[in-house]
């Protein structure tokens, strides 16, 4: 589902690209009807504010779900919660998508990912060292939080390019811990 143009009016005023867990969805709205296109499929969407400020009752093709859509700092970034699961999403307009393609067109290949502290705590120990190769799910750092030791694991394969913290550091939630080069 990556980057194919399903909807004829995706490039129009009401076309959006949604990035979510590495997948891209194209959504377009036709003002005047409840019908929305998602990846080319029409669905009937009915959204009502259920509770201030951002909990919605959503009925999609008759199916009823409760969805929280929280602004997540940057424009077009939303934290979405539904049915027990949490999603980080980025929504860009068709125009923004074109602009990005123009700017980043040549950019490809290697990326760095920064792994952040999932909760406040204390850095107990490095398991691996800078330069070590990691597999997804492999433990990199031991952190103590809520009286328990927790392994912070690599989300992707690659090599550890940099530690932002050292043993004994107290860290806040969201603070960068280390980087993986892949």
């Amino acid at each position, binding site marked *: 589902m990556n980057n194919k143009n399903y909807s004829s009016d995706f490039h129009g005023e009401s076309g959006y690209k949604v990035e979510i867990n590495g997948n891209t969805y194209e959504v377009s709205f036709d003002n005047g009807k409840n019908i929305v296109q998602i990846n080319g499929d029409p669905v009937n969407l009915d*959204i009502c504010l259920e509770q201030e400020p951002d909990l919605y009752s*959503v009925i999609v093709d008759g199916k009823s779900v409760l969805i929280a859509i929280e602004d997540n*700092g940057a424009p077009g970034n939303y934290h*979405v919660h539904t049915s027990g*699961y949490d999603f980080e999403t980025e929504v860009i307009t068709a125009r923004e998508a074109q602009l990005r393609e123009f700017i980043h067109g040549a950019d490809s290949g290697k990326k760095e990912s920064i792994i952040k502290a999932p909760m406040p705590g204390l850095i107990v120990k490095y398991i691996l060292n800078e330069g070590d190769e990691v597999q997804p799910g492999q433990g990199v750092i031991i952190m103590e939080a809520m009286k*328990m030791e927790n392994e912070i694991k690599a989300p992707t394969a690659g090599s550890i390019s940099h530690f932002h913290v050292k043993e004994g550091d107290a860290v806040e*939630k969201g603070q960068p811990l280390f980087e993986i080069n892949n």
Partner: protein
Amino acid sequence: MIQKILVANRGEIAIRVIRACHELGITTVAVYSDIDRLAQHVQLADEAYNIGPAPASESYLRGDNIIEVAKKSSADAIHPGYGFLSENPDFAREVENSGLIWIGPPPDAITSMGSKTEARAIMMKAGVPVVPGTPEGVEDDQEAKRLANEIGYPVLIKAAMGGGGKGMRVVSRESDLADSLEGARRESMSAFGSPIIYLEKFIERSRHIEFQVFADNYGNVVHFGERECSIQRRHQKVVEEAPSPVMTPELRSEMGEAAVAAAKACGYRNAGTVEFIVDQDRKYYFLEMNTRLQVEHPVTEMVTGVDLCKLQIRVASGEKLPYTQQDIKISGHAIEVRLYSEDSLNNFLPTTGRVRYLKPPDGFGIREDSGLREGGEISIHYDPMISKLIAWDHDREGAIKRMKRALNEYHITGVRTTIPFGLFVMENESFRKGDFDTSFVEREFDVNMLLEQEKSWEKIAALAAAWKRHEAVSNGNGTASNNSTKAINNEPGKGWKMLGREAGLR
């Protein structure tokens, strides 16, 4: 009779005790740390007093401050809940020395059972079978190596003053022993203030089954049947049930008698729990005794109909046990799922944050013992167990289905919880057949199953996010991101007829 009780705890267990008191017509006094000013237990209690800063060591563990508040507020008694000071014999003694009633066992029994090594010695003497292991704490690594070889791998390293899975490590081979000893000592020191550990034979594929016992001041001791607590992750219980799917009436009375003997052996009074491990041949071994009300006590309440917390208060105020062993009957089946503020999809890492929306389930056979409130903060300072969901039905199958319904109905945002994991357990074939042991999570749980579930909601999440951006763009706020709510009230576009209606209603 007791007129006023100070509850020396927070969260769901403080609320549990407050409810019991109110049903007995007893006035309640809550204590709170600075960050708990708005916690639920403060709001449900009749009175509330601040006892210090957020860290437990400066508030909920400050026995001196707590006793001072009890005196200032003219409380007659102190209920410690579980955790914090509940198994601290010095505090219990101090409470009694201050002329207050301690709602718990005698300080000496707490001391004996608090030392896991001493407890084992007492039980052996009383003829209760114990797991093979070292009779006392092991300090030296070489000595540990020798003892481990004697016991035979796999061995279990445990904190002598421990509990709740903290400071515990399973070691399968000698080469891992040193690292595990180091980790266990560090964790034990941090959690219990003592690095002393000991070794036990690790009994593979065993079940954790515990008996609820109760003793009054007149030598009467009964048990309320067993709880099966084998579903654990990181040696912490996450799902409990009563009765155990492997229990027979014969084994229940045999193990129940052993539990009663254990309570008698340490001069016990009030509520306590005797924990056993049961191997694949249904041979059982004493593990430890918990000298307090357990987290999982509700499943026993649901199948016996007895309010254990009220019974604690009645027994502490000098009443005789109103039940003999024959009066206690098990009826139906109850399951408890503990909700932790942990990420089921990310190795159960603790998460913190503010509860944004909270819509818990209810209905026939569902009970929730919760400390949550909308807007409430989950901090790093206290235990990540935030709520307990309990389902009862005629039989185990019905209770599982009811729990599944309730977990699906539960809506909580702002912090991640173990609800997805709870649903995984309820849907797991081995669990449903009752065919599991304490290695259940390691053997059966694969995070990919939850990731697949997650994936099934991705499209609708994408749709919702796109709609939110579209609302912002349509209202001329394509880049500003914080007034989409306003967007809805301001003529949301002709197409959104229901939104229009909702706006009209506001």
